């Protein structure tokens, strides 16, 4: 059975698409699935550095599309989970190097070998975005609780619905509970009221994301990271599991073994 192609997009840049793609891909691999993550941001590749795989690139997506490399040659295995593979973007070409039909075909091929194919979309609503959704079975929209990000998300939702890709689902990223309590940040419910689509994840702002990314590691490996836990939960929801949303209060610090044995689970 063919795998599922999931595109992660946002409209606005800098809201966390690449971090989300890297961590969802890793979290799904941790769950034992075969996952390919594809950097569709041609000319501005980043998924490789976020995953710490930048030194291993030989061929890229454009090489595959143009026939200079076979798909298997271009795929880079993750350091910890060989079931997780990266197809990097080209760095020296631009978004017009590939068209939507070629991307759809690439997704179809990847879906034969992998359970999940995650496409990291470029920002914007132009060719790069069109390519990124061309082969998608499902679209996840990442936004932040800020006016510009939510407005762009609304635009993208309209385009995804017009492309008849089914109902997109929302990830609200970089949520700051303290600011929400003070009335200085829109709550997740505010954002949902405005965008009116289904929610698949709420990721709190977390400095550990920056620290993990500095090292080229996924934050889902950090047992103390609230963001990491949120990404694990999104991965499980993608697998169809019913996972309750985390309360946004500040976490009680739990030791790694307490987490391992599920102690204090109800508090988080």
């Amino acid at each position: 059975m063919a795998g599922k192609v999931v595109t992660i997009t946002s409209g606005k840049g800098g809201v966390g698409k690449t971090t989300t793609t890297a961590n969802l891909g890793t979290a799904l691999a941790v769950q034992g699935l075969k996952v390919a993550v594809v950097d569709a941001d041609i000319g501005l590749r980043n998924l490789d550095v976020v995953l710490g795989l930048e030194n291993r690139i030989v061929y890229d997506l454009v090489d595959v599309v143009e026939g200079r490399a076979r798909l298997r040659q271009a795929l880079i295995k993750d350091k910890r989970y060989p079931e997780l593979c990266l197809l990097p973007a080209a760095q020296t070409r631009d978004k017009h190097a590939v068209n939507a039909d070629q991307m759809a075909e690439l997704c179809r091929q990847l879906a034969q070998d992998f359970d999940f194919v995650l496409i990291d979309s470029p920002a914007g609503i132009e060719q790069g975005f069109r390519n990124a959704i061309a082969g998608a079975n499902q679209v996840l929209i990442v936004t932040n609780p800020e006016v510009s990000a939510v407005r762009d998300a609304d635009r993208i939702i309209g385009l995804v619905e017009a492309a008849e890709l089914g109902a997109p689902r929302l990830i609200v990223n970089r949520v700051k509970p303290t600011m929400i309590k003070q009335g200085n940040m829109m709550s997740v419910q505010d954002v949902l009221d405005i965008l009116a689509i289904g929610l698949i994840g709420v990721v709190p702002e977390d400095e550990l994301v920056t620290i993990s990314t500095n090292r080229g590691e996924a934050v889902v490996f950090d047992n103390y990271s609230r963001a990491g836990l949120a990404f694990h939960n999104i991965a499980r929801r993608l697998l169809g599991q019913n996972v309750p949303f985390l309360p946004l209060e500040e976490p009680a610090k739990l030791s790694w073994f307490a987490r391992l044995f599920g102690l204090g689970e109800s508090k988080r």
Partner: protein
Amino acid sequence: MGLLSGLFSKRETPKPVTSSGVAKERLQLALVYDRVKISPEVLETIKEEIVEVISKHFDIDRQGMEITLGERNDRLEVNIPVRRSKVYNQNS
């Protein structure tokens, strides 16, 4: 924004004082026009024309009337509080 505030003035929600409330309200208004790509003037014209037609048959509460967009840009929702039906009163 005069026309705009007129259109939405009868919302039940109190005026937001927090910055998050302001953000939400500004976004909701901005998205109305992003979604349908029509100007506040056109919406106001639509409102007046609807009032004209409906008031032939109903005694309506003009202050309480509001036009909003559905969840996406797929429907225009018009809410008109009716005081009494003129037609009904004539026939009975």
